[in-house]
Structure formats: structure tokens, C-alpha cells
């Protein structure tokens, strides 16, 4: 279904791998960086919308509206006024969600590209061969799947001599970084519909991502960690006040 994304993803990933000393871990990190650069407009718009929604919570006008339309019977009116305020402040309420949906196929394609490139089974290797258009493919196959302590084609576990079981380090990092990332995007107001969604995201997203990282290949978990860290860094770098924030700056009191 997503072959038109997966095939070029796989080729670019292998191309980067061939230039980075045949280190597939580094190739995943660099490739993730490239994907983030390509999807920068979506990410920036998502972060802008998320921040605007957060800052809206301390907007006096919004507080007045909430105060004015309290109670269940005014819920519809409150929503209408909220939409008006969004328009006034130039906030797109779906701005934080749509980019996520747009990136969904990219995440799935990345999963397939990593899985296919590592080709841990005969059918995966056959699929990999079909889509590979690099002239030196025969020299590169199979890709070196070892990175640090990990086999990127296997679920990641760190085994220490004094412990009887392996520690899923990457899954834990994915859990923490996914939580930080989703928390950053969450509006603070507990009564707001966006905040409810944010709370659900805060809960489900990190758990789901960590679970996927726990059961699937370390290569995919490495992609999640890299993309989460880049998101967090991007969020803090681009943390400038938006229109909604500017609107709440209190006016200086007039001198008597």
C-alpha cells in the first residue's frame, strides 16, 4: 500500500548506510534527521498550534468566555465562542492533530524500510532485493545490524552479568521521551476538550510507543528515540511567544 514511500525510504537508508562506514544505527539516526528536515513545515505548524493552544489557557478573554458560559446548558455556546476566539487569534484547533496524521504513513514506511533493510527472514530479503536500485547492493547485503550493544533486527535488551534478564533500555527511553514530547503539546486547562485529548495522548502514546519498541526491532526503537529527541529539541529552540501569548501580556498600569 505504501510501496511508493517504502521503496525510496529503503534506498535512501541503504545509501546513507554505505557512506557511514556500514553502520546501520548511524544510518537510521541520520535518515531520521533528514525525514525531520523534510517534514519540518508540518512539525513547525504542529508545535505552533500546540503552543498557541497552551497559551490560550491564560488568555483573559478566554477566561471571561468560560466564566460567562459556565454550566452544561451553555456548552454549545461556549464552543461557538471558543471557535470565534480561535479565528480571532489565528489558531487552527486541528493544527496539532493533522500533522500527526500526515506523519503516520511516514512512521509506518520507516518501520517497513528498517525491517526490510535488515531482512531477517527470506521473504523480507526478497522484498528488499526487489526494491533496491543501488548498483553496489550485492556488496552491501546483508547489512551490518550491530550498533552499540544492539542487534537492530531484534528486540533490544541490554544484558548485564549480574542480572538474569535483559533490560529494555530503548523501550524505556522511548517511554520517557514520548511522554515528554506529548506533555509538551498538551494544553493545561483541565476543562478544555483539547486538554482531554492531550491527557489521553499523554497516557496512551508513550505506552504504545514503548510497547512497540519492546516487541519490535531495535532499529525501529532507535528511530522513535531519535525522532522524539529531535522533536523535543525543536520545541525548545522554536519556543517563541505566539499571538495568543502576546494577547495576554498585561498592560502597564497608567501612572497617576
Amino acid at each position, binding site marked *: 500500500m505504501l510501496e511508493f514511500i517504502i521503496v525510496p525510504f529503503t534506498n535512501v537508508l541503504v545509501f546513507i548506510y554505505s557512506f557511514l562506514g556500514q553502520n546501520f544505527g548511524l544510518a537510521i539516526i541520520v535518515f531520521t534527521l533528514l525525514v525531520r528536515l523534510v517534514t519540518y513545515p508540518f512539525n513547525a505548524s504542529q508545535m505552533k498550534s500546540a503552543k498557541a493552544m497552551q497559551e490560550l489557557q491564560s488568555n483573559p478573554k478566554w477566561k471571561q468566555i468560560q466564566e460567562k458560559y459556565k454550566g452544561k446548558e451553555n456548552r454549545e455556546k461556549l464552543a461557538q465562542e471558543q471557535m470565534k476566539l480561535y479565528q480571532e487569534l489565528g489558531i487552527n484547533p486541528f493544527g496539532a492533530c493533522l500533522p500527526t496524521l500526515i506523519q503516520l504513513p511516514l512512521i509506518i514506511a520507516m518501520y517497513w524500510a528498517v525491517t526490510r533493510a535488515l531482512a531477517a527472514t527470506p521473504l523480507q530479503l526478497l522484498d528488499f532485493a526487489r526494491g533496491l536500485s543501488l548498483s553496489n547492493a550485492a556488496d552491501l*547485503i*546483508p547489512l551490518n545490524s550491530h550498533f552499540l550493544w544492539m542487534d537492530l533486527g531484534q528486540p533490544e535488551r541490554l544484558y548485564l552479568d549480574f542480572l538474569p534478564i535483559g533490560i529494555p533500555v530503548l523501550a524505556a527511553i522511548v517511554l520517557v521521551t514520548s511522554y515528554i514530547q506529548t506533555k509538551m503539546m498538551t494544553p493545561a486547562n483541565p476543562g478544555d476538550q483539547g486538554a482531554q485529548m492531550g491527557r489521553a495522548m499523554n497516557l496512551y502514546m508513550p505506552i504504545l510507543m514503548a510497547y512497540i519498541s519492546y*516487541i519490535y526491532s531495535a532499529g525501529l526503537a532507535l528511530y522513535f528515540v531519535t525522532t522524539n529527541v529531535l522533536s523535543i529539541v525543536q520545541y525548545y529552540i522554536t519556543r517563541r511567544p505566539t499571538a495568543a501569548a502576546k494577547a495576554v501580556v498585561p498592560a502597564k498600569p497608567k501612572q497617576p
Partner: protein
Amino acid sequence: MTMKRLTKILPLLLLGLLLTACGSGVGAVSWPGITIDEESGTAYVAYNQAVYALQIENGAQRWRFPAENQANFTTFAPPQLTEDGQLLVSGYDQTLYSVNPENGNPGWTFAGATNRFIGSPLVAAGLIYAPNSDNRLYTLATNGELQWTFSSQQPLWSQPILVDEMLIVSSMDHNVYGVDTGSGEQIWSLDAGGAMVSNPTLGEGGIVYVGTLNRQVLAIDSSRGRLIWSHDAPDWVWGAPTYFDGQLFAGDLTGTVIVLDAATGQELWSVDTEGAITGSPLVMNDHIYVVNENGQVISFTLDGTIQWTQTIEAKLYGSPVAAGNLILVGVGTSEALVVALDENGDTAWTFTPASQ
């Protein structure tokens, strides 16, 4: 949970579902592997979550292992019989299983590997040589006790062969190795120029042949590890070449059947079947049988004339196997796991496992 909340987490559920559906736990990741025991009239078929023991004459199921599907257990490599009456099953769950070939009852297991057993083990000289994707060849006694290991640089997917008390191991690390059967010490290695996913083939005079993903068929002197000749194929040579009467038969991913003079590597004839060939050609009763990804089973005479083509509604990847006068083809679809054809290409029987 309210409908509203459900719609909020729908993208996450969708992502989870799509990734889960793509995972190795669901659906087959290889093709059926078949082994024949003419003495007992049994075909052992490894596919996905079970090994099936079938009566060769009519395809009736004798038993299956495990009796019921088990989480994490999948197997695809042709199971191997030992001289002392065991059936060895290569598990994708990092485990090698010993099974009673008469009733499918489990015996010992070897769980000392750290990756999948994709290829079949070799049973020779009272030992078991089991290749694993963790780059190691595990040598076990017939009670499953580890004797020694041999390490290559990349996964081992193919069954080694024994030539004059030396193991010949074709590895995905692009090397063919000569390994001492007693100690596991490397005697020689030869850079084959590309990864190998299928076993070497023994010809005459200790010459072994390998097909590589570097689009070549190589002939190697197994006593010294010296290259004798190489022949360029149109595409990847996935399956092991088949040796018969001084000739070598191989197929590639373009679907070309190549027949070479085994002594010189000179091409005698080739035919394009137009469907990728990943299995080894079968030579039986002076005919060659190949299967391809287009679902075709094609019978050639030894001079390359096509006798008949039978089409099965499936992508066929494995090697056809001789069982008496029948040709068994691993299919691996919901309609059929195995199809048995007679020498005229007519279907003798079809086996479809009962759903679990």
C-alpha cells in the same frame, strides 16, 4: 470509554494496528520446507506454526507438531531426520527441537542460540550441525548437548554439507568456509563476492558449487578452498544449484534456468521462465522440475525442452521435492499447503491443514 474519547485515540490505535499487522508474529515470513522419508512413506512439511507429517501416497495427515499452535513458535526449514530416529525442527523462536518422527511427540530442545534457526541442520557422522542467524554454527550431540560452535561474520541461513570429513559452510558474510568437523576450526575460507542464503552442492571429485546474491555460480575445490570457475547469472542465484550427471542446474530471480557444464562452467542452455526462482531445480527421472514466483511448475527435458507447465494459484518459492514418482510443491496458501503432482503435471493430491 465514551465514543468521543475513542475517536481521540483512534490514530494511535490505527498506528498500533498497522505496525502489529506488519510484524513477524502475524503471517508467514518464508515458505514451506519439505523433507521426504521414503522408508516410512512420510513427507514432513514445516510451515509457519507447525510441522505436518503426511502420507506420501495420499497426503493424509499423520500428526502435527506442536499438537496445537504455540505462541512464538514458527518453522520453515525442511526438518531433518537423524539415524537414531529423531526429527529435527528448526525454530524461528531460537530453538532447535527434537521430535519423534512416528508420532510428533516432543523430545529434547536446544535453546542456546540467540537468533532464528532459518536453515536446516545437517546430520552427519553422529553429530548435528545447526546454522543460526546469530552467525554461529552450533554442533550438537544427538542428545542435544552442545559440542562446539563455529562463528562467521554474518547470519548462517543455509545447511552445511560434509565433504571428506570437512564441513563446507556458505555464509551470508560472502565467504565459503571449510571447517574441521572434529574441532570446529576453520581450515580455509574463500570470498564468494556476495552473500549466500542456500547450501553448497557437492559434485564429483570434491568440487562444491554455490549460488550467490552477487549473481554468480561458483565452483570451488573443497580440499583447498580454491575457486575453479565462476559463471555470471542475470540476477541473484538464491537456491542451491543442482548437480546431475556432469551438469549443474540453477535458477535466478529473473526466472532464468541456467544449465552449466559442471567441469568448466560453460553455459549449455538457459530458459527464461519469467517468474523469480528461489528454489533449487529438481532432477528426477531424466527431467528437470522448477517452480517460480508466478505459480508455475515447469517440467523440462534434460536438453531444455519444456514438457509441461502446471500453474498453481500461489507464489511458489521453495524447492520441488521428489517423493516416489510424485513431485511435492510447497504452496503455503489458505487453499493448499502442499500440492503433489505426478510426472505429467496432474494433481495427485492436495493437503490443506485443518485450521487451529
